[in-house]
């Protein structure tokens, strides 16, 4: 699993993260006490979850089939959690405003823009990123088709395109080139590989493989 490997490969990095986390935990607890208005303290008694300003809160989710527990500030997007904290950098940050689709991941089976949702909102969710698509060394059929049909040039939008394409086929929105173009319109490719992307998706759809 990517994050496991990563911790093994970068032990120093992990320590650094943890040291920073401990520092923030201590300082944020003090800040939270100082800044949290009485109302928030009171609300905490019956609210399902709460985090004060600067305070990190625990979030449990399943990422690429593996249970993950993290602590994050409320303002951290799912995209930034994946990239900055879990080193799952396959998911790209393009516009960071939901206009380009480079950050597309699946949450509970639905494709979404991970830049426009908060990590704290993902409690209990199942998340799949581009790293979770292949089965070991065996590429996912959509990944294979993108290579076969040259569905990219610079490759920056490709993880988002592939995650979106897999969902597009699963949703049943890949019935024709026109339908694919409409339902893939949330993924921008500035190199203009659209034709080949459509060919790749049609190929997988017509090939009848389970995606």
């Amino acid at each position: 699993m990517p994050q496991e490997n990563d911790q093994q490969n970068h032990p120093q990095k992990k320590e650094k993260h943890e040291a920073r986390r401990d520092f923030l935990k201590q300082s944020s607890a003090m800040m939270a006490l100082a800044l949290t208005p009485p109302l928030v303290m009171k609300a905490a008694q019956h609210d399902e979850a709460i985090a004060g300003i600067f305070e990190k809160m625990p979030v449990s989710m399943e990422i690429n089939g593996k249970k993950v527990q993290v602590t994050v500030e409320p303002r951290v997007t799912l995209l930034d959690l994946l990239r900055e904290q879990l080193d799952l950098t396959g998911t790209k940050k393009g516009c960071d405003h939901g206009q380009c689709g480079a950050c597309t991941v699946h949450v509970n089976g639905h494709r979404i823009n991970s830049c426009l949702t908060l990590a704290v909102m993902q409690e209990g969710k199942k998340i799949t990123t581009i790293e979770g698509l292949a089965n070991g060394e065996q590429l996912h059929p959509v990944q294979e088709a993108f290579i076969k049909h040259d569905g990219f040039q610079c490759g920056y939008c490709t993880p988002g395109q592939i995650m979106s394409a897999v969902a597009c086929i699963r949703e049943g929105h890949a019935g024709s080139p026109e339908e694919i173009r409409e339902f893939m319109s949330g993924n921008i490719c500035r190199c203009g590989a659209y034709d080949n992307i459509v060919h790749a998706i049609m190929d997988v759809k017509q090939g009848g493989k389970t995606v």
Partner: protein
Amino acid sequence: MNQFSYVRPASLKAAIDAVAKDNTARFIAGGTNLLDLMKSGVVIPEKLVDINRLPLKDIQLNGNTLHIGALALNSELAAHELVTTHHPLLSQALLAGASQQLRNMATVGGNMMQRTRCTYFYDTTMPCNKRSPNSGCGAIGGINRMHAIFGSSESCIAVHPSDMCVALAALDATVLVSGPKGNRRIPFTDFHRLPGNTPQLDNNLAKGELITAVEIPANAYTKNVYYLKVRDRASYAFALVSVAAALDISNNVIRSARLAMGGVAHKPWRLYEAEKALAGKAPTEENFRDAANIALQSAKAYQHNRFKTGLSVNSIQTALLKAASV
């Protein structure tokens, strides 16, 4: 993004309390517009109240009325059998908006609450009466190609960006809200406001009020409907103009019509006069043209959006022709 605190209340009452008692708190559902605005520094809440776990996701028939929970996702709603069967216009409008990724996040209530995409509203270095009351309007003397041709004021010429809302306005929907003072129902066409001299107010919700559902009454607009969206690219762009057209045709006579436009006003813009003009007429190209011309009589264009008046006439006529020929 600026720092904020986060709370996920376990009940509707706790959620309403959290926002009603705190001027700096905002509800968050899908977050697709709010987080975008927060990243741009246009909106800076100090607390987000996450309502996603509240039981407001149901889509069901109550008698003949379609009840849509405020947290129903735009993608779910567009594909729901009750919608495609009874209110296909709404399904078409939903699918014309945003991308599938955004529709998988955006809720019905959030779609209604989205802010204008006026570039002067988004650019915090520019004057904008909506973002910063009494700072002026950058669009009136600026680049106003995307802006309103109906119902604008000297304070604001921004347009409401939703497609879904245009269909809901045409279909005589009702908005259900809960607030500190209890529940109330607001006709959909009274939910959003015209700018007047208070463009900072997009809608008529009171402080702490939360949209809980939208209801659509049974109607005869199940077949002859069309949502036409005209934009700068074929998909995934906001409307220059859009038209929701619904006709009840019997024996080659229009018994009644519903027409609303998007991209032309501060709120979804119902074309009541054109609807009246169509009632009792035959569904012909000429009658559709006449109705479209009636609709545009009250239009007022600005320097860069004059094309919208002609485009609107053509779009209304085209939408009606498409609706009639289904």
